[in-house]
């Protein structure tokens, strides 16, 4: 992984996978991503990108809509799977 912060990586991934975000939009940590257009296909693509960016295998138990509900829920999943990373940074 580069020196890019986790929060920054997540924000970048989300912007790449959400159809309803402009550059000016601030994505709140508890913003329901479905309202920004994240659908099931978007979740699949996002999951694949997360596996690559965070060098992690998302187990089936994490492949549920609740994981992708908000940026905070995604960050929480990453924190569980990669406790060595500092999510807050």
């Amino acid at each position, binding site marked *: 992984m580069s020196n890019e912060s986790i929060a920054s990586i997540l924000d970048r991934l989300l912007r790449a996978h959400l159809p309803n975000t402009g550059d000016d939009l601030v994505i709140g940590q508890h913003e329901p991503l*479905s309202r920004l257009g994240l659908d099931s296909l978007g979740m699949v693509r996002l999951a*694949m990108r997360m596996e690559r960016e965070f060098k992690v295998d998302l187990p089936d138990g994490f492949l549920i809509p609740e994981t992708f509900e908000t940026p905070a829920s995604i960050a929480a999943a990453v924190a569980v799977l990669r406790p060595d990373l500092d999510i807050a940074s």
Partner: protein
Amino acid sequence: MTTVAAQATSEAVTAVADVAAAHAEQVDRESRFPVAAVEALRSGRLLSMGVPAGFGGGDQGIGTVARTTTALARKCGSTGLIFAMHQSQIASLVRHSEDEAVQRALRRIAAEELLVASATTEASVGGDVRTSSCFVERVGTRFRLAKQASVISYGGHADIILVTARRDAASGPQDQVLVLCDRDGVTLEQNVVWDVLGMRGTCSHGYALQAEGDGDAVMSTPYAVISAQTMLPVSHVLWAAAWLGLAEEAVERARLFVQASARKKPEVVPPGAVRLAEATARLHQMRALVGAGVGRFEELAAVPHELSRMSTVVEFNSLKVSASTLVVEIAAAAMSICGIAGYRCDGPYSVARILRDAYGAALMVNNDRINGNNAQLMLVGKSF
């Protein structure tokens, strides 16, 4: 369920199946809603079979509902499928009944034996039921919505229609809610006629739907959740149960044909006997498939997040694809066994209506679409 209650339910199902059988040919020929069979379901208190006792219903689980569906579909595919769709809507209400309006509706459904339909497809978005173009408009304490529904099965005969729509005008196409639309507040203008190959009695016409009612009729649980945890798995199990009924009846007719041939010439094994053995093996395969689907839902029913797992979605999608494929194979085999007698539209060995009904299975939510969705989900899932 007590033995006496189970016996009463079983007798009620048999009585309705007899009514369905008596009208099946006319329902199919004239593409008519099976009025008599649904009235019999109503008077036998079977429409509320899946409603919990606390709301006044029959308190039956998915196993009994599936077996009833199969029994009805054996005699009339349209009646069986209507029952399956209705009970899928009931399950969606029961399992997401946090709202008082939903609880009131369930009490009414049980007390008045109401028939529940759904309007999930939309002309502008095709068959993708997880996408809506129409939206809920709030006007004070009321709601209203307008939907170009390309298909509403038995919409013209339903007492309640569950309609998917975007949460509001600003919501994305997948930010859907489910709206409980009482027939009194619904206007249906039919604009597509259901004149099709099979399942003709489901009267799945297209309509311009307009609905209004109290604002609390908009269910608070997002449709994404209702779909993943209930509508999708229950629909696929019960549709498969309906198709199993078609397959069972097809094999039964083939058995009667082969046995009649054997009795005419006891010294010769009829040529269709081996094919009958093969078709029966397929039928057993299909029964096991549907039984496993019922069991899997019972196992996961109380663990909603497990039902939402991508791997579980693939599982219930696969059930639909497999059952809809098997039913055509089995019905076609039965027709081949019965020969011209099976090809005929009348007579005790006719498989014509069954085969026509069976062909719809792969198309109601097209298997290509479902396999496409599974293909996407399998890009990240780990165990299937």
